[in-house]
């Protein structure tokens, strides 16, 4: 540590001494001579920077393009559109980037101070200014139209046959709810939440103090944590909420994202194209997972707020969902028919009868 500081200070001193010396030398040589020299060196460095910079852009791409999501097909229909839009945008901005950077550094190099050059007094030109107002405006209009078509299709209503899953963020994890056999989500209320037995506050009993009436639709709702199962090629709609602070359901492989806001439900829908198993083959990564990353700063555990989307075939899904028990049973094991030996209370009997 101290050694590092000593070395840094030493380097500083050396640089400073050189800089000081060069100042004295330039004074000796005269200001205009030294300015000419500096100009030559820096003008040359401008062109060096341009060349090295463009090579660097290419080299960076060599190194890291393979690590982005773009080397594999997007895992949803939405994602395909995002990717092609991304390539178009890259094409347009890439051309402008290369052209303007070349012009900038090339001009800097070419028009470095030269005693013989007479500066071209060129304060304005209506034609040129018009040109670079109109052309960008037209190009951008194209991009806006392209983008908005996608935007409206992404944010539009989910198809009627979409399966619906409720996603709730909390510090620091994800809770998922399926509507169960009745295909209806029962009512929930945040003041009914119990961190151990009722994580999202399903209203399954009357509560006079909270003015709540039990909702029978809650009784078959299935609640899981951390992993959500969805079906390949079947549209899925997430109804997203949060239990505490703002979170965000980040689905990089599907190219989607939506905030989870307490008190204001949001939605997002897409159609997965590959099962997790297929994606493992596509990416050649046996550990591949469709990860849900929390993309909105939510506290000190933000970086560990991970969920998993398991994309399976319809058969696999049916087999999985059949094994799931309503969340109600885990809070009230007495009500579970599998535990029939114990006498069930009257109220729960009545409730299960309604199912």
């Amino acid at each position: 540590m101290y050694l590092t500081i000593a070395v840094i200070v030493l380097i500083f001193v050396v640089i400073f001494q050189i800089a000081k010396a060069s100042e004295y030398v330039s004074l000796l040589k005269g200001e205009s001579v030294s300015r000419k020299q500096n100009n030559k060196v820096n003008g040359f460095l401008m062109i060096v920077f341009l060349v090295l910079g463009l090579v660097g852009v290419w080299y960076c791409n060599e190194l890291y393009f393979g690590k982005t999501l773009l080397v594999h097909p997007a895992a949803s229909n939405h994602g395909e559109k995002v990717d092609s839009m991304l390539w178009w945008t890259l094409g347009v901005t890439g051309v402008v980037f290369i052209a303007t950077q070349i012009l900038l550094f090339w001009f800097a190099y070419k028009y470095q101070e030269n005693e013989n050059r007479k500066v071209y007094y060129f304060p304005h030109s209506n034609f040129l200014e018009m040109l670079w107002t109109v052309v960008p405006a037209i190009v951008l209009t194209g991009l806006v139209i392209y983008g908005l078509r996608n935007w409206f299709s992404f944010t539009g209503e989910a198809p009627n046959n979409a399966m619906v899953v409720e996603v709730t963020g909390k510090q620091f994890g994800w809770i998922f709810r399926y509507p169960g056999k009745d295909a209806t989500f029962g009512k929930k209320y945040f003041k009914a939440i119990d961190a151990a037995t009722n994580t999202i506050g399903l209203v399954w009993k009357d509560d006079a103090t909270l003015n709540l009436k039990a909702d029978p639709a809650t009784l078959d709702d299935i609640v899981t944590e951390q992993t959500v199962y969805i079906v390949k090629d079947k549209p899925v709609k997430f109804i997203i909420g949060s239990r505490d602070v703002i979170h965000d359901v980040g689905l990089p492989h599907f190219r989607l994202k939506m905030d989870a806001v307490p008190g204001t439900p949001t939605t997002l829908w897409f159609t997965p194209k590959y099962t997790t198993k297929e994606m493992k083959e596509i990416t050649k990564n046996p550990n591949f997972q469709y990860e849900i990353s929390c993309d909105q700063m939510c506290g000190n555990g933000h970086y560990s707020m991970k969920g998993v989307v398991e994309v399976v075939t319809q058969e696999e899904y049916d087999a999985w969902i059949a094994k799931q028990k309503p969340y109600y049973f885990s809070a009230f094991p007495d009500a579970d028919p599998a535990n029939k030996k114990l006498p069930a209370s009257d109220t729960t009997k009545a409730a299960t009868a309604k199912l």
Partner: protein
Amino acid sequence: MTNEVLLDPHAIASDAHHGHDAAHHDEHHHTETFISKYVFSMDHKMIAKQFLITGMVWAVLGGLMSVFFRLQLGYPDSTFPWLEDILGKWAKGGHITPEAYYALVTTHGTVLVFFVLTAGLSGTFANFLIPLQIGARDMASPFMNMLSYWFFFIASIVMLSSLFIETGPFSGGWTAYPPLSALGSASPGSKTGMDLWLVAMALFVVSSLLGGLNYIATVLNMRTTGMSMTRMPLTIWALFFTAVLGVLSFPVLFSGFILLIFDRNFGTSFYLSDIFVNGVGALPNEGGSAILYQHLFWFLGHPEVYIILLPAMGMVSEILSTHSRKPIFGYMAMVGSMFAIAILAFLVWAHHMFVTGLNPFLGSIFVLLTLLIAVPSAIKVFNWLTTLWKGNIRFTPAMMFAIGFVSLFISGGLTGIWLGNSALDIHLHDTYFVIAHFHIVMGVASMFGMFAGVYHWYPKMYGRNLNNTLGYIHFWVTIAGAYLIFWPMHYEGLAGMPRRYYDYSIWESFKQFGGLNQFISTVVMIVFAVQLLFLFNFFYSIWRGRKVTQANPWNSNTLEWTTPIKPGHGNWPGEIPEVHRWAYDYGKDGKEFIPQTVPVGADESTSH
């Protein structure tokens, strides 16, 4: 524009007023004490230096914070025992804790955006340049100007003190979204640290309003004879628009903060609803909207980007023209595009909120207006390029930084076209792509504008020269470093890698960038060290730099170079000079440069 003499009645009136002032100031000089000259100064030039140096202190602190959190990102598995010596319990065993990491990230953002790039940049140059370049003896209200600095100073002290409290400084990101920022039970940083953060920011808003009103009043009323609005240097136009943006948008931020203070302390529910906090239980609040805060925040937050960027654009325009010895191309288009940017800046804020679930139709309007900003931006870039074309460029350090600014503005501006298009933003939102975008276009580019300004006006500020060689080293290492740090981050963003993560090792999708993160962190340290070299150059040269011998070292046209080498309070010892032309007559009729004070000759061409 023509070069007819435009007589402005206001200018004459204020000139007469100044004549009186000058006598007053001369008297004043004799009784000046250390306190009135250096501490509670009402001289705009001294206040500018106060803003600049306070901004530098914050830049070093904020930069050091980024070095610390980059250590965590680059070397998550290593321990640095010396970190514990500096940070104590926040780096137990030489490893930065998540609490400390988030506090560092948050404070880095707040400090750099507000204290360095707002106060440090427009505070410095608006104060320094407005009276000097429009031909005024001082600001409209020197007293308010002094208050503006001291409110900033108190804000700084409060913010600094938040670093030393037991529960730590605020750690919920510089945007301070509630409920996280409203609930101490959800994050220790949201306890006392957040109270101090809010107080500091409220004081900062006061400072910024006092400054902004003054800048506007000065530019509108105190221009010297002949200095019509369309003869003002582009720096002044930029600083003027900046002040207007700040005056109209900071109060909205302030109102957002007031509501947040109410929610935090007085049990209201403006932003809170349906909340259950682990270990605390359900909160009583119902009916608030967390998204409301985001609207209020970004109604400042987006203009803020231009509050940071416009002064840099103005100074770069001035510097590019002066050092290419050629008029700025398309002066009126430059003013017009800045005006367009200033208007549009108010109409695009919700592009920060595309994934909050906002109404898709509303979102589409914001897409349109956001991408519209690219048009004035494109005009500016092409005008800068044309200014260089067929010029006679002198590579002073100021010029190099101005060229660097244009390069960075292009690189970072183009990715704005990606992010402003909502359908793409859904995917890239809150990833490293965004980090790369705004650091290049707003952070580093504006820093470059600031450096260009410091190098260009240093002789005027201190009557001495900075060391050029150190300036060249500073430039080349910084621009190369800036690209090496932020360019590869685009790729992390294209992998969907989220920002504000303390550790990526549990993520199958993001952990492949360990080597890159290490590389970036190493470059960060080198670039930070080179900034210290610049600071050394700055402070060393104040006392030991080569003395300036010519009043106009850059052969510039603007008025500040008609003052004595070390101007006193009041700027011009005699009459304020009269202005006869625009600021950019370089290379006209074969003449190297024609200062604004030179009357139009009878045989002068009228191409402009």
